[in-house]
């Protein structure tokens, strides 16, 4: 990548254009938020393959299903709130159940979006999308991973939900990143505790690992960009090798990454797990960083959670 991509939305828009150049059957649909989702970049390059559907997310998902049933690879974009909830049943019945090759790429995930407030802050979308059979659910962390991921989903058949944040993001990876669906990315090796994170929480988890390193704690950081299918082997290995875990997500702690990891741990190798995320409450308006601090989604809080998880592991060991 020659120039720095400021955020994952732009990474999506640019990747979509690259896909458009490579595959004539890639088409894009948008529910009047193209300037937000950055699907406008595709419109500029391929206006004949770009379909504004207007403010009608339910219809957009159905049209995408019809296009996919006719051999197209539709990328349907809007904000996470509207894709996953307004059009949730359309995604279930018209896309996921018939296993149609529709890529729902939704942006503006989580409370991170800031001043627009709770109505626009999707904190339930992962829980909803991952409960639907046949769905692949993805949440990329940085522009490099987002770019790779969009290319990857274009060539893997099946209904997919991609959850992308709004704000500018630092690069976590360099161009050598190898990506495979169903395989977590080891963002930092470590032996004392494992922090599993998605999206905007990956860079914060790496910062947390720095904080922990200064205290002599070696934290492993896994980028769980593929929430479904979850890399169960990586979760179990983390449990076995580090004995305790933390999840970090800009999403409700109910049903999201934390829920998914808890499901795997409790049915394989139960170890202490501390879930960092929105604690089953709606967000509110505010500056993005202020909100993340207010709801405890910071490197410091992740580091504290790691320490708490380690303390619980030690308490359990003493009790045995």
């Amino acid at each position: 990548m020659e120039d720095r991509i400021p955020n994952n939305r732009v990474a999506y828009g640019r990747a979509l254009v690259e896909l458009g150049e490579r595959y004539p059957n890639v088409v894009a649909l948008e529910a009047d938020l193209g300037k937000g989702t950055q699907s406008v970049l595709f419109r500029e390059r391929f206006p004949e393959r770009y379909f504004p559907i207007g403010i009608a997310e339910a219809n957009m998902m159905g049209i995408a299903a019809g296009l996919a049933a006719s051999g197209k690879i539709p990328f349907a974009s809007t904000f996470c709130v509207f894709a996953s909830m307004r059009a949730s049943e359309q995604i279930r019945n018209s896309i996921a159940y018939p296993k149609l090759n529709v890529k729902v790429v939704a942006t503006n995930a989580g409370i991170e979006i800031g001043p627009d407030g709770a109505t626009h802050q999707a904190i339930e979308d992962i829980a909803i999308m991952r409960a639907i059979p046949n769905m692949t659910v993805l949440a990329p962390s940085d522009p490099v991973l987002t770019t790779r991921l969009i290319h990857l989903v274009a060539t893997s058949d099946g209904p997919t939900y991609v959850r992308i944040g709004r704000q500018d993001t630092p690069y976590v990876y360099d161009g050598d990143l190898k990506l495979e669906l169903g395989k977590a990315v080891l963002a930092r090796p470590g032996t004392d505790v494992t922090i599993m994170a998605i999206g905007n929480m990956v860079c914060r988890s790496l910062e947390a690992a720095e904080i922990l390193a200064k205290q002599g704690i070696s934290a492993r950081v896994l980028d769980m960009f593929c929430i479904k299918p979850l890399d169960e082997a990586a979760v179990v290995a983390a449990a076995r090798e580090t004995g305790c875990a933390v999840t970090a997500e800009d999403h409700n702690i109910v049903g999201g990454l934390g829920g998914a990891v808890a499901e795997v741990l409790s049915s394989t190798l139960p170890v202490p797990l501390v879930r960092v995320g929105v604690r089953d409450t709606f967000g509110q308006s505010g500056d993005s960083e202020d909100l993340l601090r207010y709801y405890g989604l910071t490197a410091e809080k992740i580091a504290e959670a790691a320490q708490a998880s380690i303390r619980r592991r030690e308490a359990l060991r003493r009790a045995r």
Partner: protein
Amino acid sequence: MSEQIQQLQAVARDLRCLALQMIQKAGSGHAGGSLSAADIVTALYFSALNVDPQRPDWPDRDRLVLSKGHGCPIVYAALARRGYFPVEELWSLRKLGSKLQGHPDMRKTPGIDATTGSLGQGISVAVGMALAAKLDRASYRVFAILGCGEMQEGQVWEAAMSAAHYHLDHLIAIVDYNGLQIDGTNAQIMEIAPLAEKWRAFGWRVWEIDGHNMAEILGALAEAKQVEGQPAVIVARTVKGKGVPFMENQVKWHSSVVTKEDLERALAELN
């Protein structure tokens, strides 16, 4: 009356008998809406649709989206008679492991082009298919059959708006306007009239016909195929339960169980 029309009427009668037998054997299903759509479905599968039962995935085939998915018994009967699968398969309707689900499943049933059943969604899928045809400059048409109660779903009107916006003249919708829904008449539950005016206002070419008059159905379908630059809709006035007098215009025959006695009486009346 032309020979073709007489033949199609006989086919429709046969499909009605098959649908009722299927529903009786299944122990559940939607008799009223299958019977009201029987003549429309017959006109499509035995005249208007350019399909090849030997090649259900033929890319240039015409598509049919049964947006009122609960009416699938009559479509399954038509598919069986057209040779998509053996007639014996019909008796597995709604049974575990069957190709014939309670609502249409494009992955399980040869000849079913879209998975439907959640009202309001099929028409959007049909719009997507017609959009793909336009993009590919393909010649196939997309037909969609909608229920009248389904008109109450907001998504229908989102889809209607988008079909006109994209000038989808390869899209032909047919509304099975029998006036009844599960809990009562359209007028009692949520008035949908004036229906033709609504579609017209949304930018569609509209025909209003008797949905049990084969000549009118064929005529409207033929004219709808000639439309350029806008989608076409045929508002077909129908009678729920049509062909079986004791079921006609009865709200309860939306999805009542058809007993063996009901079936015998119905078959006698149909023949």
